[in-house]
């Protein structure tokens, strides 16, 4: 748009016409370099943080690679065949998917409920809000240690509370039970990450149009009807997005397993991230660990795709 008018104004003399064109060329070249310079950090970040690790992972997964000596020999799909034939790895993938969906659903339900409660108490709830966010601030290692102590049968919080109500807690050791170890980790996980959902949903509630809600209330909508017909549709996009974020976090869960059970008893709480850690850093087999990581990436994609589609649909409808 600028160029034609510029040409017109520079038309009278050929000598004067050349100079501005050159200066224009120089200026556009400068602009191009400036653009490149501005884009370069992002491009570099994508290359360093995304492309390089992915290329390394792909190369490692089709090679015999140890921790000390990666890429010793190309082995084709051997690592993938080994991984998919390993019943423990396959079981850990199913376990991880089930765990992630369960803790994500729990976090979203509790997160939405606590956000609604907070929203109602906006004027008086600053301390409560701060306390609710505390688990999110704690390092995951601390959360793991804390909950391990809670479940300690020898004087932990659970044993103490059960003892106080007259229940013999000496045999209550969720982390030593093949049935309860993973739910116990899930409880700690939900405690840790629900505040994130709360925070996101609370922000969405604050951006709600009060007039719509008040109008609905004047029309007689209250309680569950008000929530279902007015509040939920207005925050649905954020709730689904929060679920997606929560799901991705849960699919990568590692620290709580590491701190609380080391994947035991047996394999009952071994999630795939823990298997990857164990294979790479304890067995020194980086090739197989890379193959498991890629298989996990496929599982994460399969689990999250429907949620991504739902997020888009809700946002489009909203």
């Amino acid at each position: 748009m600028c160029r034609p008018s510029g040409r017109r104004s520079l038309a009278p003399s050929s000598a004067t016409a050349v100079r501005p064109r050159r200066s224009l060329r120089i200026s556009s070249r400068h602009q191009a370099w400036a653009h490149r310079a501005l884009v370069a950090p992002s491009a570099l970040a994508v290359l360093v943080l995304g492309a390089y690790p992915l290329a390394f992972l792909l190369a490692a997964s089709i090679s015999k690679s140890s921790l000390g000596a990666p890429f010793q020999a190309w082995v084709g799909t051997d690592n993938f065949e080994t991984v998919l034939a390993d019943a423990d790895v396959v079981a850990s993938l199913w376990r991880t998917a089930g765990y992630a969906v369960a803790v994500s659903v729990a976090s979203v339900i509790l997160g939405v409920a606590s956000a609604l409660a907070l929203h109602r108490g906006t004027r008086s709830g600053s301390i409560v809000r701060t306390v609710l966010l505390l688990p999110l601030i704690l390092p995951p290692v601390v959360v793991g240690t804390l909950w391990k102590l809670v479940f300690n049968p020898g004087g932990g919080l659970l044993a103490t509370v059960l003892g106080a109500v007259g229940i013999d807690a000496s045999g209550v050791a969720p982390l030593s039970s093949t049935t309860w170890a993973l739910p116990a980790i899930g409880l700690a996980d939900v405690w840790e990450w629900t505040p994130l959902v709360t925070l996101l949903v609370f922000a969405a509630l604050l951006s709600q149009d009060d007039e719509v809600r008040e109008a609905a209330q004047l029309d007689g909508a209250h309680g569950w009807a008000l929530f279902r017909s007015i509040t939920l549709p207005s925050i649905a996009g954020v709730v689904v997005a929060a679920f997606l974020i929560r799901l991705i976090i849960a699919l990568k869960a590692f620290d709580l397993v590491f701190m609380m059970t080391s994947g035991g008893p047996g394999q009952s709480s071994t999630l795939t991230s823990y298997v990857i850690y164990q294979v790479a850093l304890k067995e020194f087999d980086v090739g197989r660990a890379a193959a498991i990581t890629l298989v996990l990436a496929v599982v994460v994609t399969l689990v999250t795709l429907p949620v991504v589609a739902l997020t888009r649909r809700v946002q489009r409808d909203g």
Partner: protein
Amino acid sequence: MVAAPGHRRSRHVLTSVSLALCASLALTACASDTGGSTPGGSESNGTSPGDTAASSGDRPFEGQELSALLITSHEGAANWLKAEFEEQTGATVKLTIVPYDEIGATLALDQQSGANTIDVAAPWYVSIGDLAAGGSIQDLTDWIDAESESLDIDDFIPAIYDPYTLVDGRRYGLPFDGDTHVLFYNTEVLAKSGITEPPATWDEYLEQVEKITAEQSGDGVYGAAIFGQKSPLILGAAYANRLAGFGGEFVDAQGRPTINSPQAVAAAQSLVDVIAHAFPTPAETDFGVGNGAWYDARVGFIENWTDLGVGSETNPDSKVVGSWGVTTLPVGGDQTTSRASLVAGFTWVIAANTTKDDLAKEFIAFASSSEVNSGLIVADPQTGIDPNRISALESGPYGTQYPDLQRVNRATLDGALAWPTGENASAAAQVLTDELAKLIAGEGGTAQETLDRVQAEWETLLGS
């Protein structure tokens, strides 16, 4: 063309600056020769520690720094070694302490990444084959052969020396921590249940554990603490003790896996049988939990390293001072004599990419010497080090202060069970541990089925 005066002046300045730079580079090179490298240079691999010291004065490594990587259990020993070595050589020792199951990975990553911040390390001996295959540690065969006299190789306990250092005929380190398990018992707990003699067989052990738990668990006291956490150094150790007792082997003389032998299956079953009567939450019982229960006088038995005896007397939290005994591991099946089990020994190795070869050799020669081992095993506070030298095991102070420990430790002199140490040994140990964890959690089928699965995987990993 004649240069302008200004140009001449600039050329003069440039020449002076270049000369000054060259001179400073040369000086820096000299300085790094004396400070950063070794008195003998990198070619002096055959120089004995003693010779090196003698040729360079009393403090030959003055001003140099050595970076040593050790595990948390060895922190006391590390500080002891640092103080002594710095005093003797003038070098500075920088310690890096990591959890026991991370030392191998830390060393491998340090070397593979090119960071090369570590000069020497004391990893679990089972990992030396993998570290060697990954090019993370040096082959010390030639140096050890050349210096066998000054290193006093013959004084190492034979049952320890080869497993801790030898992989495919080459030597990669020198033993540091003997680390055999023995059976400790609380005399008061046993007496309360009318038990006067510690068990000689694993069957007797099971009976006594059952009895104590049945009679005293109401008071929070159990028959035994069983290390059951899913780690080769923990659950793997508990199994190895029984495997040794039943006369089994991990691999045969040719290195072929024999982990589903009748002895190995009996050992696994023996472990399963006692879990039900052990201190609660075996799956969570690691060193901290198990040792805590022992010091708190809440268990009758615990299988542990001999230095637990030192801790039982010197640990400020110990409630078992003067009320414990120790015996060799029980036996089972056709086995009639007790065998030591080298469950968690540690070996000094030199990082592949260190530039301080001579200093590193000086250090590991010092740290694995008879004098140091003799000092560490009786040090107070406890250092976590067990005998790996015959002279240390038979030393006067050890015999005087800890006669019972000396007696049970002599079991290592008659041969001991060692883990495989070649390439993939770390993975093999982890596979066994995972399967044992499933077995004791009731997820793995029978002991025979469990060990058949391990055997199949080991044949792939270690060769059939």
